[in-house]
Structures are given as structure tokens and as C-alpha cells.
């Protein structure tokens, strides 16, 4: 009887260990059920704002100096939309 109990215990421990390992594979996706998608998206927009890109910063400065074009903020084509959004590759990564 003792032998059977010990065998069951060993098997249970092994199943538990395997289960834990299996579970750990999905830890990298835990944000899917732990985080709020809307808040994370807002963070994504801020953290990947192309205005932070040095090149774009220089371009914006040049534009400001020249004062020849209206800024994107005033552009009627961009009314109601976000003028600067993260690069589309980043959206692609998130959607995929």
C-alpha cells in the first residue's frame, strides 16, 4: 500500500511540475488577461509618439522656422484625428 501511495505521490508531483512548466510558457501573454487594453493602447500611443523621434523633431523645428506651411494641428484634413501616430510597423506587430 505504501508503495502505491508513494507512486501516486511521485506521479502527482510530476504532473504538477509539468503543469507549471506548461503554464509558464504562456506567462509572456499574461498581459492579455491582466491588463486593460484601452489603457495599454493609450500608453502605446504616448511611448511611441513619433514626435520623440530626433529626425521628426528637427523637421518640426525647420517647419517652425520656415513658417511656410500650416502645422498638422491646424490642417483641416487632420481634424478629429491624431496627427502623429506611432509607426505602422508597431501597429502591425501589435495586431499580429
Amino acid at each position, binding site marked *: 500500500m505504501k508503495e502505491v501511495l508513494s507512486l501516486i505521490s511521485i506521479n502527482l508531483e510530476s504532473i504538477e511540475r509539468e503543469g507549471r512548466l506548461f503554464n509558464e510558457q504562456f506567462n509572456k501573454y499574461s498581459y*492579455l*488577461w491582466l491588463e486593460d*487594453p*484601452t489603457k*495599454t*493602447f493609450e500608453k502605446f500611443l504616448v511611448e511611441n509618439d513619433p514626435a520623440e523621434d530626433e529626425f521628426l523633431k528637427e523637421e518640426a523645428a525647420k517647419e517652425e522656422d520656415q513658417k511656410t*506651411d*500650416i502645422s*498638422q494641428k*491646424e*490642417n*483641416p*484634413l*487632420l*481634424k*478629429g*484625428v*491624431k496627427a502623429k*501616430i506611432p509607426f*505602422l510597423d508597431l*501597429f*502591425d506587430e*501589435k*495586431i*499580429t
Partner: protein
Amino acid sequence: MAPLKSSLNAKVTAWQNVYTLFLVTQFKTTLKNLKNFVSSTAQGIVRNPADEENQSDKNLLMSVMKTISDVKDVEPKTEGIIKRMKEMVNLLKKHQINMQDKGDEEPLQAIDNTYAAFKETTQRVFKIKADILPL
């Protein structure tokens, strides 16, 4: 196992939707803005201040000059905006996201048609600009 799968699937879809809906809205709003701009510009140059019967209408001249100024401001930025809209549409298509409501044009076709209308209207505006220069 099936309820877990279904629940996970719903979670993943909800996450994807946040990103795709944002792009769909960006695209649709920009296209609508472009259509409105073309329409208001066309409306703004219906009457040419250089035509004999309009030459005494100073209000018309001022209003057409405002239209010309708006076009001058927007025109250099438009190509980039069109390019960005097309890139968005292509990305959304790649992920099989529907952007069309019932009766809507195919998105890329809609962009091309609206841009063609924009260019045509812009040319008319610049022609009027040349016409009113001597006034």
C-alpha cells in the same frame, strides 16, 4: 477546454480591436475631411471674381482669396496624408479588417478618387488665382 479557448479568443480579439479600430477611425475621418475639403473648396470657387459680372463684388474676391489661401496651406501636406492613409488601409487589409460600410467604395479606390478630385479642384483654384492676379 473549449470555454477557455473561447474566452482567450475573445480577449485576443478585444486587444486587436483596440489597435485596428483606431486605424479604421483615423482612415475614415481623414478621408471624410478630405472629401469635405474638396467640396467646400469647389463651393468656394463656384463664381470667378475675374468674370466681368463679378468684378465689382469685393466680398466674393475676399472669399475666393480665402479659399486660395486654404488650398495653398493644405496642398503641400496632402500627398503625405494620402500615402499614410493608403499604408493604413494596406495594413488593415493585411489583417482582413473590414473598413467598408454597406454601399461604401473600396477604400483604396475611394482614396484615389478623392485625391483625383482634390487635384482637379486645386488646379481650378490655381487657375482662378492666376485670373484674379491682375485685379
